[in-house]
Every structure is written in structure tokens, then in C-alpha cells.
């Protein structure tokens, strides 16, 4: 119970720190942020207006408290380029990003973990060597490039799958249309974390299979299936869940590239557009959203480990 409270307390602290860093991002802009936003030809009045809108005319500490207060009220500022509140602009896109990330995560779990387990089962065998080398190479693939290759080969040359957007623009279908549009981006986003999860699942599993209790189970005549998928998986799961939680971070980062390549109308694509337009409030809020999502996912992962592991606290040997 105390451990849970401590964990929650540290999460709050981390979130506070996160908002401070996101706030400070604006201070990192070389020179006058207002000029950076408007460009060299801006008039004094418009500069002053932007400064006032960003709150730059007040002392730093006051600015931060204002910012924090705004966040708590759900006010993330106003876009400088689109006449819209940032939250209005970003929330629907966040939803789209979560759809894509969720689908990619599903691919990672369904393919990555079993791959790692099978490799561990045949440790040093041919399957292990080949699949783990491929996974290492997969972990090195530039996502944006892989996306382009898929667009080129499967989309443009073979015309198998849609390569852009979430729905067919002329004839938007329902769930099926969404699924078809999801395939390429989800697989692209999943590639690197999948490879990492496979490699780490393998090493966790190799470790588990060497434990004394596995030998006890074998000596009790249990089937390999039960040893692998019941006892092995059950014991490997807590560290694997932690690993997956951390890999969601890479997924959330990589999704930015994927959304740009596949024209997926999510947070990442908006972030990209706003960066090019130097729409700093949108960039700030976008970064904040993703970071908060990542922190919450890891909180969830820790909670899951607490539930999964009867000893509740076990060193993560990943």
C-alpha cells in the first residue's frame, strides 16, 4: 500500500517536472520567441501581441504558474496559425494516434513475445540465431525509410493496400476501411519495438528456463507446452511487461515518422506541421500529451507487474 502511494507520488512529481521542461522548451528558442514565430518582417505591434499571448512579458516563475494553472484547467493555449484552441486541435488527433499506436502495440505483442519465446526454447539453434539476427537488424531500421519502402512496393507498385490517411477520402468506409488503412502504418510503427521486444523476451525467457523450478516441473513429467506457455510465460511476464511499457516510448516517438510518411492525421503529423510553421504552443502541448501518455503507460505497466507477481516486488532482470 505504501509502495503504491510512493509510486503515485513520484508519478505526480515526474508529471510536474515534465510540464516544467515543456514550459522551458519555449525559453530554449534562440533570441526572441515572438520574432522566431513571426519571422523577420514582423511589426512591433504584432510582436507585442504574440508576446502577450505567450505570456512572455511576465517574470518566468509567474509564467510557469500561469502555464501550470492553465494545464490544470485543461487550457493548453491557443494555436498561432490556426484560429483554434490547442486542445480542440489536438484531442481528435491524439485519438487517431492512440488508434495507430494501439494497433502497432498489438502487433508487437502478438509477434514479438512468441518469437522471443520460441528463440529461447531453441537457444543457440538455427531458428534462434537467424531470428535474433533479423531482429537486431530490424531494431536498426530507420522507420521513415521502411515506411517509404512499404509505400513504394506494396502501395504504389502492387497497389495492395492504401498508403495514406485513415479512411478512403472519396468513399469513406467504416471499420473495414480503417483496418485497411491501418495495416501498413501499424506494421511500420511496430517494426523496431517488435524487434527489441523479441530480443528481450528471448533473454528473459532464457533466464527463466534455467531456473531450478523449471527442472522440478520437467522432473514432474509436465508437458513442454505447459512448461513453456503456462509456467515459463507466467514467470517471464512481469519483466516483459516492464520492457513493453518502456518500448511504448519508442513507439510513441516512431509514430511521428510513420504519421508523416503515411499521412495519418494524428498528433505526430500535427507536430510536424506545427514545427514547420513554428506554432510553438501546439508543439509544446503535443510534446506534453505524448510524454504524459508515456508516463501513464508505465504506471499501468508497473501496476500490472504488481498484480502479476505474487512476490509483488521482484528485481527486473531484463
Amino acid at each position, binding site marked *: 500500500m505504501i509502495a503504491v502511494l510512493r509510486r503515485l507520488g*513520484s508519478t505526480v*512529481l*515526474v*508529471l510536474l*517536472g*515534465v510540464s516544467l*521542461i515543456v514550459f522551458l*522548451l*519555449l525559453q*530554449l*528558442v534562440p533570441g526572441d520567441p515572438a520574432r522566431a514565430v513571426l519571422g523577420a518582417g514582423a511589426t512591433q505591434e504584432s510582436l507585442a501581441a504574440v508576446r502577450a499571448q505567450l505570456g512572455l512579458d511576465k517574470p518566468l516563475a509567474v509564467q510557469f504558474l500561469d502555464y501550470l494553472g492553465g494545464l490544470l484547467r485543461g487550457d493548453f493555449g491557443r494555436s498561432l496559425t490556426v484560429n483554434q484552441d490547442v486542445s480542440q486541435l489536438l484531442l481528435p488527433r491524439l485519438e487517431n494516434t492512440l488508434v495507430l499506436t494501439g494497433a502497432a502495440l498489438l502487433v508487437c505483442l502478438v509477434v514479438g513475445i512468441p518469437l522471443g519465446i520460441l528463440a529461447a526454447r531453441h537457444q543457440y539453434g538455427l531458428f534462434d540465431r537467424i531470428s535474433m539476427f533479423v531482429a*537486431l*537488424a530490424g*531494431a*536498426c*531500421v*530507420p*522507420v*521513415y*525509410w*521502411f515506411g*517509404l*519502402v512499404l*509505400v*513504394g*512496393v506494396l502501395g*504504389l*507498385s502492387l497497389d495492395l493496400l492504401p498508403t495514406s490517411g485513415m479512411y478512403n477520402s472519396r468513399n469513406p468506409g467504416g471499420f473495414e476501411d480503417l483496418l485497411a488503412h491501418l495495416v501498413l502504418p501499424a506494421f511500420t510503427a511496430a517494426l*523496431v*519495438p517488435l524487434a*527489441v521486444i523479441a*530480443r*528481450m523476451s528471448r533473454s528473459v525467457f532464457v533466464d527463466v528456463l534455467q531456473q531450478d523450478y523449471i527442472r522440478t516441473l520437467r522432473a514432474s513429467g509436465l508437458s513442454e507446452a505447459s512448461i513453456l506457455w503456462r509456467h515459463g510465460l507466467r514467470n517471464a511476464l512481469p519483466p516483459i511487461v*516492464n*520492457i513493453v511499457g*518502456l*518500448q511504448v*516510448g*519508442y513507439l*510513441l*516517438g*516512431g509514430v*511521428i*515518422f510513420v504519421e*508523416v*510518411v503515411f499521412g495519418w492525421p494524428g498528433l505526430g503529423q500535427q*507536430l*510536424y506541421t506545427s*514545427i*514547420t510553421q513554428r506554432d510553438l504552443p501546439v*508543439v509544446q502541448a503535443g*510534446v506534453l500529451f*505524448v*510524454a504524459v501518455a*508515456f*508516463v501513464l503507460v508505465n504506471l499501468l505497466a508497473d501496476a500490472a507487474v504488481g498484480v502479476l507477481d505474487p512476490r509483488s516486488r521482484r*528485481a*527486473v*532482470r*531484463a
Partner: protein
Amino acid sequence: MNETEAPTGLPATAPTAPEVARVPRPRRGQPPARPSRTRLAVRAFARDRVAVVALAVLLLVVLASLFAPLLAPFSPTAGDASLRLQGIGTPGHPLGLDGQGRDVLSRLLWGGRNSLAVAVVPVLVVFPIALLAGLVAGYTRGHLGDLIMRLLDVLFAFPLVLLAIALAAVLGAGLGNVMLAIGITLIPYMARVAYTTTVQEVGKEYVEAARASGATTRDLLLRELVPNVVSALLVYATTLCGLMIVVAAGLSFLGVGVIPPTPDWGIMTSDGASVLLEGKFHVATIPGLVILVVALSFNLIGDGLRDALDPRKQTT
């Protein structure tokens, strides 16, 4: 996130602090009973065929980039519009030409300089900083150490790629700013590895033994601890170089990295994206493959290093 966790927000494949040499070094005044640790490691590395091949590939790429002015047949920035988008195998242009009629091979060679520098320089600069922070936090276990680790926890809340993009975006494009952005992004990851290894090593019996035999703190730090932490960090840094090649090129791809028309593998990939619709795949494919091969080489070298620095796998 608790402290025992390995910094695995990364696609890097050496996320846990790797197994490192923990052989007690010979006491001062006694001749070493066996060859030096470095020599043993080099020997072990040389036996690892995969790692040696990866090192050779990497050296080849580095040398080719260094000697780009001599090797590149054409200018990396000036194009010949009449040959625009000619494919692989065009006479005089073995790797073809891009959308502006520039020679892909020449851009690849010149681009290597930026792409490698942007990835490797930050790792080299952050290395001593992270080492110091990790040692201080891990060895003293005091308020300063606590503070350092709390700060790093906050930075860990940002996915690596996102933090790099955000920093690069606010700092503005350009070689120096990208290096700065990547450097800041790297600090928590590298410091965490230094910290974890330090804590692990301090808890081990040989440190206890050294203490009991009257070693001073300075002796202990320099002779026992630092070599082990450096080894661990070295393995991790090598892997990180591979990852940073991909990330740095990604920043350029998004337009927050190196500024065009400066050649860079990420920019070349991004250039290729725009001509993909014209059915020309080579412009995007070639630089992407190079990034992949270089990143993979760094990872394989990192794996080889990890094994080579593990005394259980060394043989005299």
C-alpha cells in the same frame, strides 16, 4: 520508474548494464599475473568474426566519408537537371541521380560526414559527463546523487525520439543545434547506465575486499570502479551510436536537422520520399540502406565488445 530498471526506452539492444570484467586487478607492486585486461579484450574481440566484419564495414564507411573530397566523382550539391532521376547503373553515376540531378554516390559520401558526426560527436561529448554523474550518484548515494537521479527520471518521461525532435525543433535546424539536441537527449540514458553499473559494482565483493585491504577511496574509484563502469558505458555508447545514426537522420528527414542542400543521409531519404510518387525508388532506398547497415554495424560491434569485456569469455 524505479532505480533497478534498465534504461530501455530505447530500441538499443544492450539495455541492461552488460556483464563487465570483474576480475580483481593485481595489487600495486605485484607484476600482473596475466596479460592486461585491454589486451585480453582485444584478443577476444578479434576472435568474434561477426564483430570484426562489422568493424571493417564501419571503418570503410568512415574512411569513405573522410576522403569524400577525393573519392566523390561529382559535386554533392550541384546537379545536372537533364539526368534527373536516372536510375542505378547510369554511366558515370553508378548509384543514379536524384530529383535535382545530383549524383547519389557523391551525396552519399559527403553526407556520411554529417550523418556520422551528428550521431557520434554527441555520444563522445556526453560520455565523460554521464560517467561523472553516474559515478557521483552511484558511489556517494547522497542528496546530490538523489537529485541527479530525480532529474533524470523526469527526462526519462519523454520518449527519446520525441525529446530529440522537440529540442531540435525549438533550437532550430543546423548541424550544431542538432548535436546539442541529441546530446541533451542522451544524457539521461548514458548517466543511468553509469549509475546502475556503479551501484552494482559497489555492492560486489571485490570492492569490499579492496576496502578491507586498506585501499583509499581514490584508489578504489580509479583502479576498481572506473574501469568497470567505463567498460559498461563503452558497450552502451557503441550501441547508442547506432541508434543515433537513425535518430539524427530522422531529424533531418523531418526538416529539423541538417539544413538542405547540405548532404545528409536523412535528407537524402526525405528527398527520395518526394519522388516516390514518380515511381523512382532508388533515391530513398539507397541512403536508408546505408543508415541501416551502419546502425547494424555499431550494434554488432557493441555486442562483440560486451562479450570481449566479459572475463568469463576471455581465454588467455
